[in-house]
């Protein structure tokens, strides 16, 4: 019995080691004094110093961050309003059609999204660069926001809204003081997902970025094609840290919202 249990744990551990080894490998070599990822040559911060001295990369990093923040704020706004609208639809057919359309961008392969957006921007004569990348990121982040917010709205029910309007709240008050505070955890989750979608995206950006503008993913791709450069390792160290912060942030939002939900349920019963 105990032996069987150990075998099981061994398998799980093996999977975890395989999953994490490449990431740890990258970060470890970001501290290596050599120039390759073959042998560790002693500890150094020099690759991080290079990274912070690389003004081109810093600019790209800031651009990426700007795109991510702007696109997630706008996508969250549009997506939340969309989810409210979907919740207001009365006919199931309309609702299902809208939800199917909503999910198209979530199931489509990135290449299709990228290629079709490229045709779209060219047809509308929108110049490729910051604007087209921003629009694309907003576009592919909206569906996930809708999917994160919609369950919260449905959970809210109508009695709360009826009570508020009976007490004389107008539409704006209803939205700003009742609905939005209630669905806030969903909005935050949507925002976080949109943020990570935008930070992670490579394929779509690669298609619509044009010549002048670059995001971090595209830059990593073009540098990786030229071979090993430990500055990328240092960058991955920093991005690993950023991802960790995002995961922890997301985890706490989830904790908060489930506690909130549990509390609401407790109050109701």
């Amino acid at each position, binding site marked *: 019995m105990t032996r069987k249990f150990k075998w099981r744990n061994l*398998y*799980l551990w093996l*999977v*975890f080691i395989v*999953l*994490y080894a*490449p*990431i740890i*490998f*990258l970060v470890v*070599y970001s501290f290596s004094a050599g120039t390759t*990822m*073959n042998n560790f040559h002693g500890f150094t911060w020099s690759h991080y110093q290079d990274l912070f001295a690389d003004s081109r990369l810093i600019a790209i990093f800031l651009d990426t961050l700007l795109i991510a923040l702007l696109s997630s704020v706008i996508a969250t*706004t549009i997506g939340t*309003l969309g989810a409210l*609208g979907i919740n*207001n639809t009365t006919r199931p057919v309309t609702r299902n059609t*809208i939800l*199917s359309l*909503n999910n*198209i*961008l*979530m*199931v*489509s*392969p*990135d*290449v299709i999204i990228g*290629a*079709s*957006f*490229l*045709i*779209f921007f060219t*047809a509308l004569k929108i110049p490729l660069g910051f604007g087209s990348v921003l629009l694309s990121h907003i*576009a592919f982040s*909206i*569906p996930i926001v*809708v999917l994160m917010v919609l369950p919260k709205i449905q959970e809210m029910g109508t009695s709360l809204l009826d009570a508020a309007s009976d007490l004389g709240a107008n*539409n704006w008050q209803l939205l700003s003081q009742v609905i939005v505070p209630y669905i806030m955890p969903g909005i935050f989750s949507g925002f976080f*997902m949109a943020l990570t*979608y935008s*930070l*992670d995206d*490579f*394929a779509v950006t690669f*298609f619509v970025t044009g010549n002048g503008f670059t995001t*971090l993913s595209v830059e*990593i*791709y073009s540098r*990786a094609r030229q*071979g*090993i450069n430990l500055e*990328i390792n240092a960058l*991955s160290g920093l*991005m690993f840290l950023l*991802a960790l912060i*995002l*995961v922890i942030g*997301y985890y706490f939002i989830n904790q908060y919202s489930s506690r909130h939900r549990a509390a609401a349920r407790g109050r109701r019963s």
Partner: protein
Amino acid sequence: MQRKQKLTRNTAYFVPYTLWIVLFVIAPVILLIYQSFFNIDGQFTWANYQTYFTSSTYLMMTVNSVWYAFLITLATLLISYPTAYLLNETKHPQLWLLLIIMPTWINLLLKAYAFIGIFSQAGIANQFLSFIGIGPKQLLFTNFSFVFVAAYIQIPFMVLPIYNAVSELNPSYVNASRDLGATPWQTFSRVIFPLTLPGVKAGIQAVFIPSLSLFMLTRLIGGNKVITLGTAIEEHFLTTMNWGMGSTIGVVLIIAMVIIMWLTGSSKRRPRKGLTK
């Protein structure tokens, strides 16, 4: 009055969202299909489709792409199913699940880049092969490395839906099957697997479709030996600038996607980030 108020509110909410659906969901797909009927000089033609379905290069590329996507999906499934099953039996499955999902939050390109280092001529994988006496081999830019890295990247997307199905499995069915004298294999093939099949299907859908279009991996890891549909689209759009042909391949990829979704039943979305449930 009340109803009218609700109606205006409804439409006001809906304007930007509807605009998004029309402009960024419907219009691009229509434009892609439209573009597929034009040749490189901008003339309307059926030639793209004719070329595609008569040229052995394109057909072989499609078959190859589907074959490699199949291999990647199979490898991912074989690793993920036991993982998901065992996860469910640990003491803190949610924590373990979070750990499985964490790597999906690391940029895909960085993970691919890590394997360039690991699989390189004098890299750690070859050092290990030399150590156990096999001797260094060409690892990077082989079909094996492409399948390996693609499977590595996709594992969390397969584990998650299967885990959800396994955790919903009522253990009393398994116990009942054992009590009635089923062998472990019978219990698995007749009870556990059929009941977790929806999760497996969702996982296959989540892995197969992206595997058809992973163009960055075929370039960085596969050394352009495997040409997937995604690689071909990228090539046509950004290198040879033959958008018509690229769109034609895009339409084929969309059809392939629809077939996969139809075969795997549900229309569940692919969680690009593991934490989406």
